[in-house]
């Protein structure tokens, strides 16, 4: 066997000529390999990644939907148990896409197998896209699983399919990028749970998953408008139920601006090698 392999994945250039690394086909292969690895990773540990959010959602429906819900009645003309569905689905998408990026990338840093990527000709943007795609895959998979659980408890409706997938996809991209930023800075395992515990969870719970901000006092209504997750959850609720506390365009504006800023930021971190290269 020859130890060399003639590959069409690389650009073959002579000395002195400008040479790029991967060809477009090679870049696609690299992306698919990284995405497949991420899907296999969270698939192998589905008991830790997919099952807990399903159980958690079922409990929310039992406690808030069936036990407390009938006392609340309707919100914006929708039974409370049905009102809960979009928020609970999107809460899973947010937490799972974030968790996938942060745990996978920090794990790779900790065990040093991130070096497999850093020594490869994959450009920084492609590594980022690969990890984000992994986060999106887990976020949407768990979102889908939670939707199946919701079907057992409530009647589901879809007001706008395009908005449904648009908001879910952009949300998972944004939070997968957030998880990646967290992982780059993290130096201990504690660091990967600080943001989800002390930032994401409070913002999500106060972002209108369980209530409409119209039920709050004027002060808290105004305060809630500073919570970006409120816009995201309401955009998704609009896609499912056709009701929202905020205009739908603001959902997309928040998501688009957030994605651009987070992507450019994480790209800068990779380029400078912060937390990655000596």
């Amino acid at each position, binding site marked *: *066997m*020859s*130890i*060399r*392999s*003639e*590959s069409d*994945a*690389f*650009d073959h*250039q*002579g*000395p*002195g000529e*400008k*040479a*790029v*690394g*991967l*060809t477009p*086909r*090679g*870049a696609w*292969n*690299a992306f*698919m*390999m*990284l995405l*497949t*690895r991420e899907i*296999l990773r969270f698939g192998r540990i589905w008991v830790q990644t997919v099952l807990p959010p399903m159980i958690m959602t079922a409990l929310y429906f039992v406690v808030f939907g069936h036990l407390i819900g009938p006392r609340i009645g309707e919100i914006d003309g929708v039974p409370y148990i049905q009102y809960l569905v979009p928020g609970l689905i999107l809460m899973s998408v947010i937490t799972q896409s974030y968790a996938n990026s942060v745990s996978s990338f920090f794990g*790779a840093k900790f*065990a*040093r*197998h991130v*070096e*497999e*990527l*850093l*020594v*490869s*000709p*994959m*450009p920084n943007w492609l590594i980022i896209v690969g990890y984000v795609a992994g986060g999106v895959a887990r976020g949407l998979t768990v979102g889908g699983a939670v939707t199946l659980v919701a079907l057992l408890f409530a009647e589901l409706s879809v007001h706008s399919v395009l908005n449904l997938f648009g908001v879910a996809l952009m949300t998972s991209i944004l939070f997968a990028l957030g998880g990646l930023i967290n992982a780059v800075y993290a130096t201990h395992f504690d660091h990967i749970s600080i943001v989800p515990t002390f930032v994401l969870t409070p913002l999500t719970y106060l972002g209108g998953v369980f209530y409409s901000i119209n039920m709050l006092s004027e002060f808290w209504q105004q305060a809630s408008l500073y919570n970006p997750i409120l816009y995201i959850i309401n955009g998704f609720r609009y896609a499912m139920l056709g009701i929202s506390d905020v205009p739908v365009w603001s959902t997309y504006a928040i998501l688009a601006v957030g994605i651009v800023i987070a992507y450019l930021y994480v790209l800068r971190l990779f380029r400078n*090698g912060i937390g990655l*290269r*000596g």
Partner: protein
Amino acid sequence: MSNAVEIYELEKTYEGGTHALKGIELAIAEGDFFALLGPNGAGKSTTIGILCSLVNKTAGSVRVFGHDLDRDRAWVKSQIGVVPQEFNFNQFEPVEEVVINQGGFYGMTRKAAKKRAHELLKQLGLFEKREGMARALSGGMKRRLMIARALVHGPRMLILDEPTAGVDIELRRGMWDFLTQINKQGTTIILTTHYLEEAEALCRNIAIINEGRIVEHSSMRNLLAKLSQETFVLYAREPVESLPEMPVVGSRLIDDETIEVDLTRGQELTGVFDVLRGHGIVIERMKNKTNRLEELFLRLVQDDDAAINAEERP
């Protein structure tokens, strides 16, 4: 022959102020089997880290197969395979997946990477273990797995940082044979090792780095020729009462059957044997007491340390 690596005035200062590389210059010919030696903290791993893009350089330039590392970084990466000092693969992945994934990161299709991974795993004696988890492998097997992973994309240059650390002698010899074979097929190999006999056995050219500076850069043959004195241990068949006068710079009786002789360049062991035979002393076996490269290495590093100390003294 063109150079695989050209390094000019390479400097690295880490955050915190450690000046790891102080303007090193190095040229490694294409197809060479090159040893980069130095004591712990000398700058070997930093140099290799810069070559592999795992460490950002502070100043200087690096060219690999004629391409500037800064300008054509991705292309340069595609030409290099790396076997690091520490295990840096996902221990919770199946063995073959570790190699296949790496092939994918270098742009290979899954099918092509799998075929190649199987070929390499067979060559390195890991094929039977391919479906087991990587963490279940022994230390020597993990080292071989990292070699398979580094070769999956068919690199023109292989960089090995302490590849045989913790590997038993038999496996080490097997790895030497494997590395010699791939070098003969044209792959340039850069090796750092603490086993100096390994460098002496495998490498044609050598650089010794100390405190971030290259203190020696030459062929192995020229370097060893600098050795002016060697010590041999001779084992007599019967007890020796006293040593006769011998044509060497030094000789001593260690115990009643063991003799040590020091020879400088130009002196031959045949003269020693003639004198001993003349006095009825028959030598049954002998060995070279010191590893020649080790002795040179220590001397060069000590000389350099002394020079640095002299410079620093007011």
